[in-house]
C-alpha cells in the first residue's frame, strides 16, 4: 500500500505544553483514515500539522518530520501556500464565504490565477455533482451560499476544497454541527470521494469511524495508542485503553 504522508517522530508544543508526543504514522493513498479519541487528545492538532494550519497560532513549535512527495513539509523547500493547495481542509462548522455558491467554489482557483470562465463553469458543475449538491442548487448557484441549509453548506465546503484538485482532504469533525440526515449524506460522500482523494477525518463518533474509515488511529493525551485497519481496531484491539474507549468505558 502506498503511503502519501509519512509522519516521523512528530512532537508539537503549545508554549511549554507538549500536545503531540512522538507520533509515527503512514497515511495510505485513496483510503479513509479516521482519528478518534476523547476531547483534548490531540487529534485535531495533529490533523492541522498535516497542512500547516497551526502556523497561524503564535508560540507553537514542531519537531520531527512529515514527508509528502519525498519532501519534509516543515523544511524550507516546502511552501505552505502550495502545500495547502495540495492538502485541502474541511472544518468543523460549515464556513462558506458570504459570497455566491459559484464564487465559493472558484475562490481558490481564482486566487491561484485561473480566471477563464469556461474552466470555472466546468469546475463548478463538476464539483457540485461530485458532492451531490448539483440538483439541489443548480437554479441558484449565483445566490448567496448563506441561504443553504447547514448540511448543504458543509457539502459546498467540501466542493470548495476539492475544486482545487488536492491530493488529500483533511476533515475536522465535519458532521459534528449537522443533523443525522445531513451526516449520513456526508458519510456517503466521503466513501464516494476516496476513489479520487485520500481522506483523513477527525471524528467524535466511533460509529462514524467504523462506518466510513479503512484505517483508524486512537489518540490519548497526545499519543497514538493504536493505529491499524479499522476492522481490527474495532473487533480486536491490542491495547486495553483502546478497548476501554471503543466499548464506551470512558471518553
Amino acid at each position, binding site marked *: 500500500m502506498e503511503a502519501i504522508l509519512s509522519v516521523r517522530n512528530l512532537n508539537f508544543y503549545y508554549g511549554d505544553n507538549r500536545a503531540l508526543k512522538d507520533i509515527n504514522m503512514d497515511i495510505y493513498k485513496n483510503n479513509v483514515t479516521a482519528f478518534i479519541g476523547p476531547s483534548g487528545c490531540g487529534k485535531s492538532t495533529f490533523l492541522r500539522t498535516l497542512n500547516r494550519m497551526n502556523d*497561524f497560532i503564535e508560540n507553537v513549535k514542531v519537531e520531527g518530520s512529515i514527508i509528502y512527495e519525498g519532501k519534509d513539509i516543515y523544511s524550507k523547500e516546502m511552501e505552505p501556500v502550495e502545500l495547502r493547495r495540495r492538502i*485541502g481542509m474541511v472544518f468543523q462548522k460549515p464556513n462558506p464565504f*458570504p*459570497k455566491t455558491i459559484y464564487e465559493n467554489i472558484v475562490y*481558490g482557483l481564482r486566487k491561484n490565477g485561473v480566471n477563464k470562465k469556461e474552466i470555472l463553469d466546468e469546475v463548478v458543475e463538476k464539483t457540485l455533482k461530485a458532492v451531490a449538491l448539483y440538483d439541489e442548487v443548480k437554479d441558484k448557484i449565483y445566490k448567496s451560499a448563506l441561504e443553504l441549509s447547514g448540511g448543504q453548506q458543509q457539502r459546498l465546503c467540501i466542493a470548495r476544497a476539492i475544486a482545487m484538485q488536492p491530493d488529500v482532504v483533511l476533515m475536522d469533525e465535519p458532521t459534528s454541527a449537522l443533523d443525522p440526515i445531513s451526516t449520513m449524506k456526508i458519510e456517503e460522500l466521503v466513501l464516494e470521494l476516496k476513489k479520487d482523494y485520500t481522506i483523513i477525518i477527525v471524528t467524535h463518533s466511533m460509529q462514524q469511524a467504523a462506518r466510513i474509515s479503512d484505517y483508524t488511529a486512537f489518540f490519548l493525551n497526545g499519543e497514538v495508542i493504536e493505529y491499524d485497519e479499522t476492522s481490527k481496531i474495532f473487533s480486536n484491539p491490542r491495547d486495553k485503553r483502546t478497548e476501554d474507549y471503543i466499548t464506551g468505558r470512558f471518553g
Partner: protein
Amino acid sequence: MNSEELRRLKRRKMLNSIMHVIFLACTLFGVVVLAILMLDILRKGIPWLSLDFLKNFPSRFPRKSGIYPALLGSLWVILLTALIAFPVGVGTAIYLEEYAEDNKFTEFIKLNIANLAGVPSIIYGMLGLAVFVRLFSMGRTILAAAFTMAILILPIIIISSQEAIKSVPSSLKQASYALGTTKWQTVTGVILPYALPGILTGSILAVSRALGEAAPLIVVGALAYVSFIPKGPLDQFTVLPIQIFNWAGMPKKEFQDIAAAGIIVLLVILLGVNSVAIILRNKYQIRMKD
C-alpha cells in the same frame, strides 16, 4: 404580608418611580438643549438662506455676504483629507491586525494610537504648522490643512478599521488560507469585503469630524477673509467653521444671523455625510447576515 412588609414594598416602588423620572430628566436635558439651539439657529438663519448666500463671497455688507469660498474650501480640504487618511489608516489597521507579530512593539504602537485619538485638536494644528507648513514648506495651503486634518483623524480611522477587521470570523480566514492563498489574497478576498462596511462607517464619521474642526486650521493658517475661489491644493483657503466663527465675532447684528445660516449649511453637509455612513452600514449588514 404584614404591614411592615407592605410599607417596605411601597418604599421600594416609590424609589423606583423617582429614579425613572430622574433618568427621563437626564435624557430630556440633552434633547431639550439641542432642540432650543436648533430652533434658535433655524429662526435666525433661515431668512438669510438663499442661492445667493451659497454663491456669494463674504462681504462687509450683510445683504451681499455669502459662503461660497468657505464651502469650496471645506470640500477641498475634506476631499484631500479623506484621500490621504483613508488608505494610510486602513493600511495601518491591516498591518496591525493581520501582519504584525503579537509582541511588545506592536502592543506599544496599538496603545499609542488609542492615546493619539484623545489628543486635543489644537495640538495637531501646532504639529501641522511646524511640520507641513514650515518644515515641508507647503505654506498655508489646502494641502497643508489636509495633511494636518488627516493626521488628526488617522487614529479614529485606524481604531474603527481595526475593530471591523477583528470582527471577521476566524473561520472564514482559515477557510481562505486552507485553499492555498497568501495573506494578501486572504485580506482582499475575505477580510476587506467583510470588514468594509465597518471601515467605511468609521472613516466617514471621522471625516465628518474633520469637517467641523476649526481650531487646528486656524493655527495652520486658514484665512479669515477670502476673496477668491480655491482652484487647487496649493491655494490658500478658508473653511466653513472658520467663516462662521468670523461672522459670529462681527459687531453688526445681522452677521450673527448670517453665522446661523452658515451653521445650517454646515449641519446639512454633516447630516448628509453621516447618513451616507448609516445607509452603507444598513445596506451591507443585511447582505452579511448569517
